[in-house]
């Protein structure tokens, strides 16, 4: 083989979604040389699909909003399993991160006063989501992509080379994080186009690889969501926190089959859409959990008044946090009150005039018109739960986004864990990407100033290369597509929206079998742009992630947020005190429980005591109150 392609940078950012791009901007502005690596073309990352908006308590629509309210909503949404410090930083910094995008050229929808408009979303007390119609993710990614181009233009002027400080390596997959002396030294991967291998030497690596949706059969995620970053971190010695928490978005398309899982944005409900069953009943009123009774309307008249007057009415139950709505839909379908294709009905046609629907929800209108022959201004949509987001992820230090246990490794965005606890609120991901993307870039910059270079050894390179080439050298193996389909089916059936101990045990056995089959999965054909080979590599990551999910889910004997156990249907304050930590022992995944850091007094005091009593044990409450 020809000479190995080598690059040397200060920071390598893996991922060009919102988190990766924001990290890259920060690192470059700190004067570092940055490589941005992504599996797709630049500007195509999964963030592009985000629709509803980015949550930030700017208070443009309701001036009562502020970071404390946002913090409270986030903790409630996550059922208090969130890392409080992440939720605090997030709520405090999100407005600045959104305003900053405007100075880079973003054009959000406006209020009458000319400020950034904000819309309602599930779990947010006030209208809080800055948005551009229903294509907010596109605006976010394009703005940052263009910011990076702007920085490159500046570098061209100052250094005569546009790529002197930021270079994008698109359509390149990283397969390994390299370490020397216990610290990060670089990353190894291959060009998707040619299959040729590439070495990046860098003392700091930021993982911003997004989610894991492709381990499930019905998902809103694109092919990129194969949990690569989760697996890379595990193999590098990092930990994953709370992997049992997977968000099933309540409203994915259910028909036709080829688009099953595709997202129907929550804005449909935020803007007035209602959920009904086959009997025409607005069933969400039957599913308001005790902890939310004082915040959600228990009758249609009040719920409908809320759209016009939010001060004197409680919110419609369609806007409960996602886990609640997804479970409710699941129950209606199971009870035989579903729609013809196994979902329920979501209707805006009777609620808003056709032109308003087209103006407020343009991409939804197109999506249904073009992919399902349904005109949503005339007919109800059929929707059902779809795997959407993973709350679990790499355990990080909140302030620096440094991965716990791996010096030089940083993580931000969906791949990082802790911020959202057991359930993420809509709009809180895009803001998370910005807040912690920036912090990861800054964290990496500070780390490098203190630590300096860390050369990669030839032995590491050889090892990484061998592992990468395995799919070509295997004999007589299986088609990776078949294994992938079985994995997706297993996740959907056994680790899905409602779980039982028995099924989770079955899943673990099944995953081990799949793993041994993957070790013989052979890639056919040559190295150039070979999707069979790519899938063989990705499968390994997906299996590892699935194992973390199944094992963590088996241990957690309660139901909370994105984890529902049929055999342990209640939420249990004892379980709120621990995170599930997954680690890789070289052969399989170990899961242990680790104590959650407790809420400091000043944040504790933001809540009513009566509310805290629903989540915290009496002992915890006394210890915080007494310990002040």
């Amino acid at each position, binding site marked *: 083989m020809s000479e190995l392609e080598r690059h040397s940078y200060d920071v390598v950012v893996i991922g060009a979604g919102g988190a990766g791009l924001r990290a890259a901007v920060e690192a470059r502005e700190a004067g570092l040389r940055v490589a941005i690596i992504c599996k797709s073309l630049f500007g195509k990352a999964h963030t592009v699909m985000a629709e509803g908006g980015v949550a930030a308590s700017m208070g443009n629509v309701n001036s009562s909003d502020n970071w404390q309210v946002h913090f409270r909503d986030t903790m409630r949404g996550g059922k208090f399993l969130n890392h409080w410090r992440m939720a605090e930083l997030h709520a405090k910094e999100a407005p600045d991160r959104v305003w900053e995008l405007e100075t880079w050229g973003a054009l959000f929808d406006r209020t009458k*006063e000319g400020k950034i408009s904000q819309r309602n979303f599930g779990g947010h007390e006030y209208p809080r989501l800055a948005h551009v119609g229903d294509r907010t993710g596109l605006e976010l990614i394009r703005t940052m992509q263009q910011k990076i181009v702007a920085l490159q233009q500046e570098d061209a002027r100052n250094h005569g080379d546009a790529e002197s400080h930021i270079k994008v390596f698109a359509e390149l997959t990283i397969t390994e994080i390299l370490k020397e002396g216990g610290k990060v030294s670089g990353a190894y991967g291959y060009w998707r186009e040619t299959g040729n291998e590439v070495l990046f030497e860098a003392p700091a690596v930021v993982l911003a690889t997004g989610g894991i949706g492709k381990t499930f059969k019905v998902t809103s995620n694109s092919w990129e969501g194969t949990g690569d970053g989760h697996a890379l971190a595990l193999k590098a010695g990092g930990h994953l926190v709370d992997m049992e928490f997977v968000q099933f978005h309540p409203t994915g398309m259910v028909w036709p*089959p080829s*688009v099953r899982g595709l997202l129907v944005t929550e804005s449909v409900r935020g803007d007035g859409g209602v959920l009904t069953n086959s009997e025409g009943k607005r069933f969400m009123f039957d599913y308001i959990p005790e902890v939310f009774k004082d915040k959600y309307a228990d009758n249609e008249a009040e719920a409908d008044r809320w759209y016009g007057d939010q001060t004197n009415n409680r919110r419609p139950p369609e806007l409960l946090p996602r886990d609640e709505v997804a479970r409710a839909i699941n129950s209606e379908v199971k009870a035989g009150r579903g729609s013809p294709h196994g979902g329920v009905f979501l209707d805006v046609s009777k609620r808003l005039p056709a032109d308003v629907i087209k103006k407020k929800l343009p991409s939804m209108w197109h999506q249904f018109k073009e992919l399902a022959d349904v005109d949503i201004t005339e007919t109800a949509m059929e929707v059902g739960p779809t795997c959407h987001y993973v709350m679990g992820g790499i355990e990080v230090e909140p302030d620096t986004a440094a991965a716990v246990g791996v010096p030089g490794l940083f993580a931000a965005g969906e791949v990082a864990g802790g911020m959202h606890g057991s359930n993420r609120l809509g709009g809180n991901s895009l803001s998370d990407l910005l807040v912690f993307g920036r912090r990861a870039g800054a964290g990496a910059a500070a780390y490098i100033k203190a630590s300096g270079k860390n050369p990669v050894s030839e032995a590491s390179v050889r090892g990484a290369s061998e592992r990468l080439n395995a799919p070509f050298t295997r004999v007589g193996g299986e088609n990776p597509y078949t294994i992938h389909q079985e994995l997706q089916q297993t996740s959907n059936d056994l680790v899905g929206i409602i779980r039982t101990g028995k099924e989770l045990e079955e899943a673990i056995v099944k995953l081990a079998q799949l793993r041994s089959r993957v070790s013989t999965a052979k890639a056919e054909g040559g190295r150039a742009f070979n999707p069979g080979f790519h899938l063989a590599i990705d499968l390994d990551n997906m299996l590892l992630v699935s194992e973390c999910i199944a094992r963590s889910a088996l241990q957690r004997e309660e139901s909370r947020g994105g984890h529902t156990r049929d055999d342990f249907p209640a939420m249990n304050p004892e379980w709120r005190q621990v995170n599930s930590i997954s680690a890789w022992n070289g052969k399989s995944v170990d899961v242990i429980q680790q104590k959650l850091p407790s809420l400091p007094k000043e944040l504790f005091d933001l809540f009513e005591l009566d509310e805290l009593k629903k989540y915290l044990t009496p002992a915890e409450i006394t210890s915080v109150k007494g310990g002040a």
Partner: protein
Amino acid sequence: MSAAEKMVKLRIWRGDAKDGALQDVEVEANEGEVVLDVIHRVQATQMSDLAVRWNCKAGKCGSCSMEINGKPRLACMTRMNMFEEGETITVTPLRAFPVIRDLVTDVSFNYKKAMEIPAFAGPTDLKPGEYRMQQVDVERSQEFRKCIECFLCQDTCHVIRDHEENKKSFAGPRFFIRIAELDMHPLDTLRNRKKTAQEEHGLGMCNITKCCTEVCPEHIRITDNAIIPMKERVVDEKYDPIRWLGSKIRKREGIN
């Protein structure tokens, strides 16, 4: 209702930069599927190394651009039921860009052009959070920011489709709307965007055939809302100083 299966005929271009040919395949198709679904089934069952780009499968990312029966389209938004029963569907890579392999082309031309357009230049006297803009004033630019960079408009534009030599001096419709977007941004401070569009980015080579508008999956009115207004105003500014002055004076008097 069950997802009725039937067999469909596909003719797929396979090859690389050096050499290639159309190959015929027959594959199952189910109700409601799009061309990309069927290509994926070919990949999973018959040609595991068939190269095709895609990402969102929802018409949002602009990755799956190709030519279907000779027309530039997104494969994920092209329904199988738009073809005649028994019709052979021909899929080929974008013609305006060099082939890498099979249906994947080298679109780096577009990223180079993006680099040539001066970035947004915001006002220096406003801090973050102080921007005030009316919805009506941002809407024009917002239309152009819907662009998903599928580059179908670039592919179809005859100025570069069969004229490699024009690529150097022609940014293409995707980047005309980028310039228009910045030009119409209420707070952009850079002057002369229209003039440089004409003089440096090849706006003058466009003869308003409107082919770009026709293929745009986002239904952006590239010609009517971006190219023509820019051309008109370039003409104003270039050749009609009196009228230009007139508009300034009217503005000052608050009549405009």
